[in-house]
């Protein structure tokens, strides 16, 4: 069994090839976000280095979000195209769950934090002693609010992800449970980590619908958000009007 794993949800562009027991190749670049240009050539490169052709693949795994909207779409459209053309299944894994797999074997809980801008992080909480198991559902949340939740849980936690660089000081100041930050080699997205989960999904037969699969953005588009706020405003205004009319 051979799986191609694609991770392009943030700055990192990472692709990996694995079989049931081994990572055959991984290629990760943490430089600039030009995923649309680099991703397919990277896939082509690791396939050739591994002496494989596309028809040797049994499945394609891809992170389904959260993350950069555009980055997610580039990875997922690539996965969709490959699976459509090769007629193989797609495995879709949460970006945060795949990140947590960087720290498999840890005794602390794992909190992957991705910079979601607007003073928020995309995060969740995982037990990753073995394959990651979700303890808190994933969300977009303010970092202080999130630390509050972790403090209330009262358990030790390891942080990783690109938001560590953004919020390390804030975390150090506000957190009351034992904590650590992942080292640089484990800090960011890795398609090898994704492929560890993908192998488990493959064996369990957990596949996504190739055609229907869409990213889990965890956020509305700006236009939708603004429209909802406006509708809410109008609604509360008309409620006030209705109330004053009753009086």
């Amino acid at each position, binding site marked *: 069994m051979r799986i191609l794993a694609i991770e392009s949800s943030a700055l990192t562009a990472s692709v990996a090839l694995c079989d049931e027991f081994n990572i055959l190749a991984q290629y990760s670049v943490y430089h600039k976000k*030009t995923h*649309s*240009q*680099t*991703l*397919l*050539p990277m*896939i*082509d490169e690791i396939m050739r280095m591994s002496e494989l*052709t*596309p028809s040797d693949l049994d499945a394609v795994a891809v992170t389904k979000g959260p993350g950069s*909207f*555009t980055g997610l*779409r*580039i990875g*997922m*459209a*690539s*996965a*969709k*195209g*490959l699976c*459509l*053309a*090769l007629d193989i299944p797609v495995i879709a894994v949460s970006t945060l769950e795949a990140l947590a797999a960087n720290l498999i074997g840890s005794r602390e809980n794992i909190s992957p934090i991705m910079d979601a801008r607007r003073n928020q992080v995309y995060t969740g909480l995982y037990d990753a002693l073995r394959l990651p198991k979700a303890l808190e559902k994933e969300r977009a949340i303010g970092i202080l609010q999130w630390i509050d939740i972790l403090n209330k849980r009262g358990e030790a936690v390891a942080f990783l992800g690109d938001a560590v660089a953004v919020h390390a000081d804030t975390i150090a100041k506000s957190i009351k449970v034992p904590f650590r930050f992942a080292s640089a080699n484990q800090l960011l997205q890795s398609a090898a980590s994704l492929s560890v989960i993908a192998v488990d999904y493959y064996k369990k037969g957990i596949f996504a619908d*190739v*055609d*229907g699969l*869409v*990213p889990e*953005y965890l956020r509305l*588009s*700006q*236009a*939708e958000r603004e*429209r909802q706020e406006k509708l809410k405003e109008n609604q509360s205004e008309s409620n006030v009007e209705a109330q004053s009319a009753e009086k």
Partner: protein
Amino acid sequence: MKIDNLGTINILAIESSCDETAAAVVQNGRKVLSNVISSQIALHEIYGGVVPELASRKHMENINPVIRQALAQAGIKLPDIDAIAVTNGPGLVGALLVGVAEAKAIAYALGKPLIGVHHIEGHIAANYIEHPDLEPPFFALVVSGGHSMLIRVADYGSYELLGSTRDDAAGEAFDKVARAIGLGYPGGPKIDRAARKGDPKAIDFPRAKIEDAPLDFSFSGLKSAVLNYINGCEMKGVSWSQEDVAASFQEAVVDVLVRNSMEAVREYGIKRFALAGGVSANTLLRARLESKLDAAGVRFFCPSLILCTDNAAMIGAAGYYAYMNGIRDGLDLNAQPNLELPMEVK
């Protein structure tokens, strides 16, 4: 270019540059085996225009079903496809990226050639589909949301620019005016419809003429004149007619487009003239241009309505001639929102 007979070439074409997700299978550049378009108009209508992020999200949902439908309707299996053509610009970058990533993955998986197609080259090639006898050289008026230009199609994939807009594109003016007079999105068809009930002579909007370049266009003054007219009426408390403004505005745009086209006919002794781009769906423009060109003894070509709006069949047609010209793109093909059509300036 001389087209050697290489037998049957089937191109799978993908287009996602704006608010339509489209796929098609085109044989030898001229025969459309399927042309599937999933329109997003309903999605964007409540926002009064195309919302780029929503368009990109919708493309993700639609892309695979649209491609599968195009293959099924054509009765073609993927191994029988000879090349993948995809619009890689210009357009909305996030929207383009979905089609480009998908096309690259399919081309890579199948080991087939990949061809990036300029959206406007697709619009020009739409004319080949229904007119088997149309071959370069010929002249074309290209009018869309981003372009207004008169060109000479010297050969397949070879263009000379004769005149272009100095400011707004014609389609852009349609969209902006439609919003200003409360018609909303999509501006082109809505103005077309409203204008049928209005008086095209009700308001005398300006027809800009550029002194030293009689084939160039300018539409920003016209757009401002429409806005000023409405503001003026409202300040004076005078009511104005949406239909009359739509009709008078459309009349002014079409006047200018036709005037410059006929100027080009006179200057270059044109015998064959094609209309291309989204605005070529405009009823008045099609009719007026046809009658003027007819009277001048010039053959007029224009795609049917379904091939005027964004579609993938036209990308397949243009992709075929690029394929025959030996053009191949690498797996590093990128979406380019401001991609320019390489052109010689005359």
